[in-house]
């Protein structure tokens, strides 16, 4: 190995340390950026909401709380119903598979996929939390309606998935 003398040795070690420091800083930065969780997003939305609503009148604050609770209650009621329907669909498919005893495997697999897909969609919808995206107290009605429209669109989308899986299932077991 060639001897590295005096100044050259110091410069080399400095160079290596600089490269290592730069690489390490990238590593730490990327690691932190990859850690935003769904809970972080909900908490950020909630913090923004609390900041806005702090300046609203007591009547409006209370009304928003009530509306938020009502949205959550409707979401729970309807997703519980849809969940029960999905359990029945899964049970019907299991019974069909038992009766077929190894036959019609492809169609059973297809139906199983869509039943699972719809069931997951119901679970996903049940876990959602709707937080008002407030602009100003003067726009409270349109802000509330925006959130309700979003909720309506998402819940109806979930309902459509349940109906679709029902159609697939009827097509398979109703032959």
């Amino acid at each position, binding site marked *: 190995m*060639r001897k*590295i003398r005096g100044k050259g040795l110091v410069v*080399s070690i400095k160079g*290596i340390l600089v*490269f290592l420091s*730069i*690489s*390490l800083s*990238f*590593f730490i930065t*990327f*690691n932190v950026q*990859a850690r935003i969780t*769904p*809970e972080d*997003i*909900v908490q950020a939305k*909630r913090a923004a909401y609390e900041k806005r609503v702090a300046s609203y009148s007591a009547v*409006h604050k209370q*009304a*928003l709380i*009530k*509306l938020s609770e*009502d*949205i959550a209650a*409707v979401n729970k009621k*309807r997703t519980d*119903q*849809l969940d*029960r*329907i999905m*359990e*029945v*669909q899964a*049970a*019907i498919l299991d*019974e069909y598979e038992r*009766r077929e005893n190894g036959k019609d495997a492809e169609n059973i697999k297809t139906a199983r996929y869509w039943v699972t*897909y719809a069931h*997951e*969609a119901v679970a*996903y919808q049940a*876990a*959602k*939390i709707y937080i008002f995206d407030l602009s100003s107290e003067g726009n*409270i*009605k349109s802000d509330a*309606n925006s959130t*309700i429209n979003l*909720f*309506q669109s998402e*819940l*109806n989308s979930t*309902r459509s998935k*349940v*109906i679709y899986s*029902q159609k697939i299932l*009827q097509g398979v*077991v*109703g032959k």
Partner: protein
Amino acid sequence: MKGKKLLIFGLVIAAVLVTAVKIGTSNDEGLASPFAGQFLAAPTKIPTPTLIPTPTPIVFNQDSNLGEEAGKFAPEDFSEDFTGLKTEASNL
């Protein structure tokens, strides 16, 4: 001189590879479902259930028509719920 350059180059490559591996493995959730990549809005408070009711078991007779059974359990219409919520919003 050539040796020093090679050493520095090797260190840089190693650092880049380590960073890439760490980024690639930083999210361990790896959902296989169709909803992978979409965020679930996790509740901040999870209530502890005091009693979990046993669901009614779903039983079929050997003679039951599964096609008919599948058609019975259609989701209800949700329109009334949304009408109620929108009426409440209009009273704000």
